[in-house]
């Protein structure tokens, strides 16, 4: 179980996470409120976390969109979405993976560039730690030794960096439309934007 969970995590990392920004953008175009978008995305990950294996999923992106559509429909039906202006079930059904083009087969080089860009955008200390841990594969303990800082500091920086990257993946970074719920998120993390 534990091991298969590791496999699921790795698979989700390479087949779902890269498409999260697209899914959120699509939901935003459908005028779904930001908080609902976060919940729908979270829901999709929750569904994935319940799976014991991912062997049956051929196309992660399509599966991700499909799960999100299901969640959106359920929300509309159960009135979880308080009121999305004029959003109907028919419209919710249009939430599909409509752009299966090059995005689906992102080249290794392009994807590498995206990962690099995410890490490069981190504050200095954070970035250094992420480069060592994620790109060079150095264990956390050894990073602490190399940088001459306590391990818990490395861990704290890693948390800070991961939070920023999650936000960037959610399209909440600079340059995107901000909504009320985003501002709340930003407020809790405002020191990183100074």
């Amino acid at each position: 179980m534990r091991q298969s969970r590791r496999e699921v995590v790795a698979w989700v990392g390479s087949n779902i996470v890269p498409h999260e920004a697209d899914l959120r953008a699509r939901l935003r175009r459908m005028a779904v409120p930001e908080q609902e978008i976060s919940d729908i995305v979270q829901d999709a990950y929750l569904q994935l976390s319940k799976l014991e294996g991912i062997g049956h999923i051929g196309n992660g992106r399509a599966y991700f969109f499909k799960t999100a559509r299901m969640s959106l429909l359920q929300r509309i039906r159960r009135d979880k979405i308080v009121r999305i202006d004029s959003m109907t079930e028919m419209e919710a059904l249009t939430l599909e993976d409509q752009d299966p083009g090059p995005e689906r087969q992102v080249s290794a080089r392009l994807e590498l560039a995206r990962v690099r860009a995410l890490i490069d955008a981190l504050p200095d200390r954070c970035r250094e730690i992420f480069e060592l841990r994620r790109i060079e594969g150095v264990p956390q303990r050894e990073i602490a030794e190399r940088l001459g800082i306590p391990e818990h500091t490395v861990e704290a920086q890693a948390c800070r960096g991961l939070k920023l990257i999650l936000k960037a993946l959610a399209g909440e970074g600079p340059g995107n439309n901000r909504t009320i719920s985003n501002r709340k998120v930003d407020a809790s993390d405002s020191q990183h934007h100074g």
Partner: protein
Amino acid sequence: MPVTASIMDDDDAVRWAVRLDAGPLDEAEQAALDAWIAADEQRAGALLRAEATLAYLDRGRALAPLQHEEAEPYEEEAPPRFGRRLFLVGGALGGICAAGLGGFMLWPGQDEGGLPARGQEIATIRGEVRRVPLADGSFASLNTASRIEVAMGQGRRRVRLDQGEVWFQVAHDRTRPFVVEAGDVRVQAVGTAFSVRLRNGGADVLVTEGAVETWVVGRESQRTRLAAGSRGFVSGAALRTEVAQAPEAVDRALAWRVGDIALNGEPLSHAVAEINRYNERQLVIGDPALAREPLVGYFRTNDPENFARAVAAMMGGHVRSEGRTIRIER
């Protein structure tokens, strides 16, 4: 209020993901993590997202090699490649393959492998799952409503799958290739466990141990090798073979051997079609949207009533029994 709560959960999820990434948890930490997850259903999703994002960043380490690992279905060019490999294997086995090929060329001329004209017929009725020992020491586990004809000769062993799905545990015997015929599809094993399910226009092949070779009548030179943990759809009509490496999916797909059906996100319609294979009382879904709902879990194949109730409870529907049908409705 919910906004704040979920932000706090996200922060905790990030902390746990980073902690898990640093190394194994001790007992107390594991207990704390379990308690944290158990307190709110959403947290498992938040944790997976955080962990998977770290895994995504790890692709920076080895993106190029990763691209080759993906075992996507093989296209047209695959068979020749396997053909070559088969040739090498054949050499290694000292002509076994050649013998296999020879036997196969002469196939319609009955007697070549010393096969009896008519074999032994074994069948299961709907709802029955049976494991049957064969004369050569192999076992055949027949799924619901399946039928095979078994012919054991001196030079080869042949099983014709006339209907349904069978899992074979093949007794090792290099001198007598074990070949399953499913329509136009052929699956050959030496000492292996695998299943074959007859489908429209082809056959599903799932390999649990060892390896098999499959081909289509008329395209004998284009063989596809399937190793343990992989599944393939071999199609005679489309002249193609799709192969995927999916050990967990293979195990799940064979849960019928113990009377279970294992679902891992497949839509309700798929689950209902599967369960209906086993029972006289047929499940009917009264709502197309319901039919698309994904399902996760193990269910008994012989208890459609309870399955329907479980589904209705999960998806907020209700069950209506009418004679030989059980309707699941919204």
